[in-house]
């Protein structure tokens, strides 16, 4: 259920790093909690952000959740498809439902994130 190759934040974001660029989305668990996602507010490309800064907003009809970047860096790409199909986050949270890509400033920050096992423990034990 929880992909082993990703890192996780306590706020239910995942990140996958390839060549110094991290792809960020929200977890299966988070999308289930939110319910049908109707709107995603994406960050602007080029924005410099600090770890745990709110950079995007994911909305259902009854809730709006800030999405925090799990690492510091510069936003280099955003998932424009979410503008027309925000439900991709519900359908494929670890794949087509990715939210933004970030060029890492401090790769060491990854060490502070949770592993799949640790994240699983977080959501099962609450």
């Amino acid at each position, binding site marked *: 259920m929880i992909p082993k190759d990703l890192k996780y934040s306590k706020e239910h974001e995942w990140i996958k790093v390839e060549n110094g660029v991290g792809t960020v989305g929200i977890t299966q668990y988070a999308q289930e909690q939110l319910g*049908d996602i*109707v*709107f995603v507010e994406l960050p602007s490309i080029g924005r410099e952000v600090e770890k745990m800064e709110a950079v995007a907003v994911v*909305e*259902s*009809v*009854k809730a709006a959740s800030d999405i925090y970047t799990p690492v510091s860096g510069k936003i280099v790409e955003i998932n424009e498809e979410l503008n027309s199909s*925000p439900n991709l986050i519900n359908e494929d949270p670890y794949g087509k439902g990715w939210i933004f890509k970030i060029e890492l400033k401090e790769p060491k920050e990854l060490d502070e994130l949770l592993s799949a096992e640790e994240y699983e423990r977080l959501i099962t034990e609450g």
Partner: protein
Amino acid sequence: MAEKLIFELGRIDREGVSIPPDDLESLNIDELIPEELLRKRDPTLPEVSEVEVIRHYTRLSQLNFCVDTHFYPLGSCTMKYNPRIGEKLSTLEGFTSLHPYEPDELVQGVLKIMFDLGQYLCEIGGFDAITLQPSAGAHGELTGLLIIRAYHETKGRKRSKVIIPDSAHGTNPASCTLAGYKAIEIKSGKDGCIDLKRLQEELDEETAAVMITNPNTLGIFEEEILRIAEITHSVGALLYGDGANLNALMGITRPGDMGFDVLHFNLHKTFAAPHGGGGPGSGPVAVKKELEPFLPVPVIVKKDGKYTLDYNRPLSIGKVKSFYGNLPVIIKAYIYIRMMGAQGLKRVSENAVLNARYVINRLKGAFDLPYNKPPMHEGVLSGKKFREYGVRTLDIAKRLLDYGFHPPTIYFPLIVEEALMIEPTETETKETLDAFIEAMLKIAEEAVKTPELLKSAPHTTPVKRLDEVKAAKELKLRWKEYK
């Protein structure tokens, strides 16, 4: 057959009510205004007859649940009966036909009502001065916070934050932002009340105010209120009271005596003016003496038996709307207070509390009571035990519609999971309360035995459950002629 929209009725060129003939045909519009200032396309408005108008809106009105037809125990909203006498007298032509810029001497009657109502509200709340200008509770919050800001500024204090409990109405933090303050939410204690230790930790020289509701949104009286006021005042901060729950307190205790410096009233809740399906309301703001100079202009002043609108108030925050306040709502509240008197208002609060406690007491077995303290005028239950049957509080609410009851407030306050916030008010008979209790108990059984019945509810309303996700995705926000 679903009711059509007014745009889908009528025919081209059909006319409604009669308009007098043009007796100035000799004047030509083109000669009066340059053509470049005129609109090029006429707006699409209905073309219907008077009978179509009346049938359409009468039929639409019949699709609503309302206090006049249904028990409406919506927590925090005080959906009490609206006396007909208020409707009758507030629409007298001696009120409706007054222009706001008439000279004061022509409007002495209306100024008297506004002045006297202000006095009554000050007495009920324990305050010294008041404005009737704000249009609603949230508007009152903004006004009150701006008064607090102006007060601090004249004292040369720059303060940046307002502390509110996490059980607060959503308008509280939103009003703080609007008034230029950072809202700091503190976690409620295990008993659902303000956690004094956490409050003490947050209170500092940056705190402009502490904003609370008493009884709080769980319907629980904050018994430590005097201590809360004391530590708030000890750092020079002021105590703001959200008056949404005043229906529990009239003639029993007064916010002003508890240490509140500012309080907004909701005339459309406590004082029996109708909610109008969402306004207009009225949210007067009462203050202690030292805050009086900051009230919005104009303030109604009585001198030698004459009432005047006083604009000469150099420290005033300004205005939060044009003119003076929502007059019919003000008149209804005035009438209500005149008819109830001191003893009557006390009995209102006693019976509001009695009814709430009676209902909560009978339902706390079938539902969970997350904070087991005696509720005041409203109580909060939780439907979380039904989750294992796939039933959410929303489903319980929708099923109540089938039983002919408007549901309680749901999912608020946020600190209670699957919250059901019940405020019966004092105007309901015991038979109505019992019928509601029976329906709730029946639904609790259904949730276990036939959960599908709840999940597919409502079954008896003009439309079945509506797809809010679709609405938010498609954003059809106006009618268009789809060809």
